[in-house]
Each structure stands twice: as C-alpha cells, then as structure tokens.
C-alpha cells in the first residue's frame, strides 16, 4: 500500500501548497497576522510530503511493483537496480513528479534559509511559490497520476529499452531539473518584488545566490547531456540544436544574464525592472521546456508523451503563471526601476549590454525552436530548423558578447574612459589577434574561435593579476568561470573546425586513413553480453592505440544499439563506431576531435567558479547585517 501512501502524500502536498499560497493573503484580509505564520510551515510540510511521494514511487520501481501502471510500462525485473531507480523519472508521470518534488523542495528551503529577509517579502515569495506548486500539483493529480494501479497486476514489466540504459542518462535529467526548477525561486522573488513594489538590499543578494545555484546545476546538467549524446548516439556530435536541448539552453542563457544583471543591482542599483523581467523570463523558459517536451508539440527525438489533453493543461498553466507575472510587470514594473547610476562606458554598461546580447540570443534560439510550429500554423509548410540556422544566427550574436567578456571586467564600474582602457584592451586584443593569426590556417571560424578564447583567457588572467592583493572569493569564482568559458570555446572550436572524419567498408585487416594516421580493422567478433549479443570490432592505430567499438543486439525487445569507442587524451579524442558487420568485415566510421575533451573540463571549471562565488556570499551577508 506504499503507492497509496505516495498518492496520499501527493494530495496532502497539493493542499499544503494551497495553504501556502493563500495564508499571507488571508492574514491580510482578516487582519490576523497569525495566519501568515502558517506559510512557512506549509512550505516545509509540502516539501516533506513531496519527498515522501517521490520516495514511494522510487520504492515501487525498486521492488518492481507492476501493479503500479507506470512501473509496468517503464520497468522490468531484468533491469539492474540503478536503472530501475532511474526509471522512476524516465517517463512522463515520474519526471513530472520529480519536477514538482524539486519545486516543493526549493520552496521548503526558501522558507528555512531566507529568514533574514524582511517578513513581508519572505511571505510574498513563499506565497508565489505555493501558487506555482498548486498549479503543477493539480496538473499531476488530474492528468498524470503516477500512482495509478493496474488490476490484475501483470507478471512482468514492459520497459526494457536498452538505449535508455546508460548511467549518464540516469543522472542527467535530475541535475537538469534541479537547475530548471531552481530558476523558480528567482521568479518568486521577482513577482514578490512587483507585488510589494519595493526591492530591498537583501533581495538582490538572495536572487543572485538562488540563481547561481540553479545556474551551476543547469551547467552540469547540460554538460552531462551533451557528453551522453557524444558517447552514445554515435554521430560524433555533442549538440544537435534539438528542441529538448534548446529547452535547457534557454533557461541557462537567461540565468547567465540574470546572474550578471543582478550584480549591478546589488552593487549600485539601476535596471531593477530589467532584472525582474529576466527572472520572470528565466522561469518562463523552464516552463516552456516542460511544455515543449511533455506535450510533444514539436517533433523531437526525446519527446515521450504525445498527449494533447496534457498539452492544453500545461499551456493553460503556462499562460496563467507566466502571463500573470508579465501582466503584473506591465502594470507595476516601472515602479521598481531606480535611476541608472552608471555611464554607458563602464563595467556596468558592458555588463548590461552583455545581458541584452544574451537575451537576444535566447530569443533567437526560441524563434528557431518554435518556428516550425509557426510555419505550420501560418501554412508555410513543414520545416525543420537545424544547426545551419542556429550556427548562422546565434554564433554571430555570441561573438561580440565573448569579446566584451574579455575586456568588460577590466573596465571600472560606474564610469570609465576609453583612454584608460587603451592599455589593457591592447594587451587582451593583442593576445587574441596573435592566437587568431596562429590558427588562421584552419580557416576563419577556427581563427575567430581561438582568438576569442585566447582573449577571454588573457583578460581574465590580467584581471586576476591586477586584483591579486584584493581578490575576493567572488572575484575568484568569476575568474574561474570565465576561464571555463575560454576553455569551452577552445574545445568547441577544436572539436568542430579541426575535426576530421573517415568512413569505409573494411574487410578484416583493411585500413583507413584519418587525419594522416592509419587505422586497421584488426578483428570483428561476436561477444555475448548479459542480455544482448555484441558485434565487437578491434581497431588498432599508431602508437599502440586500440579501440573496441560495438553494436549490441538485444533480444527483448529486439533492438540494436551502437557503442562508440573513444580514446581521449588532453589533446583530443579519437572516436570510432561500426555499422553492420560480420566476422569478415564491417563499416567503420572514425572521427578525430582535437581539443574536444576541453569542453568537458570547461564545464567543471564553470561549476567550480559558480561554487566558489556561491560560498563566498554567505560570510559577506552576515558581515553586512551586523
């Protein structure tokens, strides 16, 4: 009866969310401040109830209770335990439950942590969070109850999709969810600020910290997802501008903008309206991601629930939450904006311009993602918007942003003069141009990429050198994250512009040449696995390099998966996949991806930078309040 207990916990959480949303308003209405005291308890209680519901679902999966419908549909006794547990969120109902549980968890933590905020603001934030929770929980309960029973209980489950059995895929959705849901806290703060019409000093600090937490998880989640696609899909790529990928990228870009914009508000005020708008948009993109994925409106390899009724519900929810917040912004947003206290030519000015560039780039990604929908409604025809579109639009927009990122931090906040900036800009620009010239042989894109990466690295190092005596942990965090961006650009540029590819149908003993290196198909043989038969090839290359790509044929359900073999060194990857083959030969496809491992290293740097900046905040907050 654990599933029923989980269902009960879900309903309880919905009731508590309602209390949380209504208590501050009721307290005001009946002039009974005591009622407002319930808000925090309701938030904490809701978080506990949702944790119980999630635990109940995970339990049902762990013990393979096939009388629960989603377990029957998505699990199997032959699955290893890790994938049984991961299957709990590998489908529509479970992923939504996890999403809602995280939302509640963030609400509960907000109630516990942000005690330092002025009481009115804290209550308003919690009320907004309660309202959002109410909507999501109602959606779960009414259209997607994960605790539905089947009678009679089937003997065995149906979910044994080998493609989805990968450790990366088990961990990456929860991380991404923590990130996308984390943006909801900034959203609640933004709506609460509009509601009260005031932004206090604690507000910006809290928003920055919460956004930073969400940003770290989004970064990690996106990086893991890309690494999974790179290793598992066997196409040698790591980013496909798939709608689902875009739906994670958009909150990331917005959170990045918010992180930088709120810094200005924290420091000297000004552009409060912009910060609030960014926070509202950030959560909007999170919800949009849920909408794009869950309703199956867009053709996508990841969309696993094509259910129009759910789509209508999500759309209505989306319209209420996001439309309501934007309407509030339209009516009251102008009240928040203080006077802009900095000159356009200053660090703050550069920061603001960069946030604008980020948001415009996000808008372009959004446009590309929904354009197929638009074209269909307008009767233009069936269109897919792929990498060529995004490469031609997003990259030119992000290039000036990266250039500004190299020089901007060297500018003075408030006001600066071009003359003073001449020397640092000359150094940064010089390093960038040198790197570009050195890599010009590989073409214009390579020169641009390496030039920008070197410029950002040079600018960051220069900044660290200048502030070596007064370095705050926050400054250090920023520098580490910015270095991460430089490393990422180098990795992306190397992995795409310097890449090479070769494909041939080889007999055993045959060779192909990849980037001047010769690789030999030494052997192809059948290897039995636990529930599949693998065709495993051994490919040997120069320097004793041996790669063993496989294709695996599973029997139930009959399905074939490709296991790429990747040999990584700090200088780059050698990547091999095989197609149809037998003992006498196979189709061998190989890529060389110079510098690509830097991309994974860069995500670690960025998360580390975020972490350093985050933990720097806590002592500082205490000092100011004293």
């Amino acid at each position, binding site marked *: 009866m654990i599933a029923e207990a989980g269902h009960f916990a879900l309903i309880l959480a919905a009731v508590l969310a309602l209390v949380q949303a209504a208590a501050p308003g009721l307290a005001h209405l009946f002039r009974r401040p005591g009622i407002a005291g319930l808000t925090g308890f309701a938030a904490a209680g809701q978080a506990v109830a949702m944790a119980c519901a999630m635990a109940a679902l995970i339990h049902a999966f762990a013990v393979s209770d096939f009388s629960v419908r989603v377990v029957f549909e998505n699990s199997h006794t032959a699955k290893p335990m890790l994938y049984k547990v991961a299957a709990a969120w590998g489908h529509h109902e479970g992923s939504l439950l996890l999403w809602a549980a995280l939302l509640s968890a963030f609400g509960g933590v907000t109630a516990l942590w942000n005690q330092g905020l002025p009481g009115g603001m804290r209550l308003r934030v919690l009320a907004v969070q309660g309202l959002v929770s109410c909507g999501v929980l109602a959606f779960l309960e009414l259209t997607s109850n994960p605790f539905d029973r089947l009678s009679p209980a089937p003997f065995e489950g149906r979910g044994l999709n080998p493609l989805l059995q990968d450790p990366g895929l088990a961990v990456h959705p929860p991380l991404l969810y923590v990130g996308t849901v984390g943006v909801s806290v900034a959203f609640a703060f933004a709506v609460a600020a509009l509601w009260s019409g005031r932004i206090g000093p604690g507000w910006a600090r809290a928003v920055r910290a919460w956004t930073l937490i969400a940003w770290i998880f989004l970064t990690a989640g996106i990086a893991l997802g890309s690494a999974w696609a790179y290793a598992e899909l066997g196409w040698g790529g790591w980013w496909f501008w798939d709608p689902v990928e875009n739906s994670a990228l958009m909150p990331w870009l917005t959170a990045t903008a918010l992180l930088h914009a709120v810094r200005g508000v924290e420091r000297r005020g000004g552009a409060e309206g912009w910060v609030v708008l960014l926070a509202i948009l950030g959560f909007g993109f999170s919800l949009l991601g849920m909408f794009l994925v869950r309703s199956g409106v867009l053709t996508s390899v990841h969309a696993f629930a094509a259910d129009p009724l759910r789509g209508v519900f999500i759309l209505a929810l989306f319209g209420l939450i996001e439309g309501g917040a934007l309407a509030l912004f*339209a009516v009251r947003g102008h009240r928040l904006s203080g006077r802009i206290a900095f000159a356009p030519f200053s660090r703050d000015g550069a920061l603001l311009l960069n946030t604008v560039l980020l948001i415009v780039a996000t808008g372009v990604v959004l446009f590309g993602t929904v354009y197929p929908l638009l074209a269909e409604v307008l009767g233009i025809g069936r269109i897919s918007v792929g990498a060529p579109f995004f490469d031609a639009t997003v990259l030119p927009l992000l290039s000036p942003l990266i250039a500004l990122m190299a020089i901007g931090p060297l500018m003075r906040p408030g006001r600066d003069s071009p003359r003073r900036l001449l020397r640092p800009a000359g150094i940064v620009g010089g390093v960038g141009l040198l790197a570009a010239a050195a890599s010009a042989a590989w073409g214009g894109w390579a020169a641009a990429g390496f030039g920008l990466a070197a410029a950002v690295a040079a600018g960051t190092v220069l900044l660290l050198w200048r502030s070596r005596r007064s370095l705050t942990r926050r400054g250090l965090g920023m520098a580490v994250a910015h270095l991460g961006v430089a490393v990422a650009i180098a990795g992306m540029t190397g992995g795409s512009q310097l890449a090479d590819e070769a494909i041939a149908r080889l007999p055993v003993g045959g060779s192909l040449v990849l980037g001047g290196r010769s690789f030999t198909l030494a052997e192809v043989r059948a290897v039995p696995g636990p529930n599949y038969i693998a065709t495993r090839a051994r490919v040997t290359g120069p320097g004793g390099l041996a790669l063993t790509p496989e294709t695996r044929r599973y029997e139930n359900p009959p399905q074939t998966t490709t296991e790429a073999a990747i040999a990584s060194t700090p200088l780059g990857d050698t990547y091999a996949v095989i197609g149809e083959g037998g003992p006498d030969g196979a189709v061998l496809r190989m890529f060389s991806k110079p510098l690509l491992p830097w991309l994974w290293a860069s995500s670690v740097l960025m998360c580390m930078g975020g972490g350093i900046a985050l933990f720097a905040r806590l002592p500082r907050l205490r000092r100011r309040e004293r």
Partner: protein
Amino acid sequence: MNRNAWMPLFVFVILLGIAGARLGQPEPPLPSALEGKPLPAFSLPLLAGEGRLTPDTLKGRPAILNVFGSWCAACVAEHPIWAEVGKRVDVYGVAWLDEPAKTRAWLAERGNPYKAVGVDKDSRFALDMGVAGAPESYLISPEGRIVAKVPGPVTETVWKETLLPALEAMK
C-alpha cells in the same frame, strides 16, 4: 504608465496563441503503418507436422495472430487469455526467435491454445510486420487485412474493449 513594460506581455500572448492554435488540432493516435493493409507475404514452417503457415491459412474467417516466444516473460502472463479468446476466434501463434524444442516444451507445460503455430526463428516475419517486441498480436479480417495491432500483452481489458468490438464489427 510605461508603454515599454507591456511589450513582453504582448509578445508572450502572441506566442501563447500560436501554441494554442497548434494544440487546437490534436492528432488522432497514430495507428500502425500496417493497419488496414493486407498481410505481407510470409510462409513459416509449422511447429507441429507438415505444411506451412501463410496468409492463405488464415483466410475466410477472422483470425488473431499472436507473436510470442518461450523466452518472453510477458507472454507467460498473457498466455491464459488465449484459451478464452480461442472460443470466439481462431488464434494462430508465431514463435519468434525461439528454438522449436523450447517452444514445444513451453506449450506442453502451459497448454496449447493455438490453431497452428508458425516458427519464425530468423525474424523474417517479425521484420516484415515491424514487430517491436513480444508479445504482439494482430486481428486479421477474413480478407487477410490487418484490422488492429496490440503491442504488448493482451489483457482482459484490451480484449473486451478493443479486439472484441472490432471482431463483432466484422461479422
């Protein structure tokens, strides 16, 4: 009042309208690529005795084709229903990716509800039919067209709510 502040809401409402318009025309659930089509040509050796299982074997009366295998756990769960269904309509089995000896032992243990069982050891038939996994069942009209496809086990509910009404409609 600041007019600029209304812009985000304006853009949002337009986007929402577009998404809503798209949702306004919901798609019917996608049927099998084969539903309504004639059975593809196949010829499977019979599990018992001489002769072969072909589309002609099924012609003249409605029939159910059930893809199963002794290795398939869900088929065990599904199995009892065929004895029941067999009273209303001819049920033919296709033993997929299975050794005939194992299939025979499996049927001997659980009872054989099939009018005839074809052996699809090398998955030729399953590939032609686009079988996604076992069990999978098809309702075939007297003219040899695929009327309905049930991926996964046929339960009481599926039989009563999907297959039986379709069968009645044919008569």
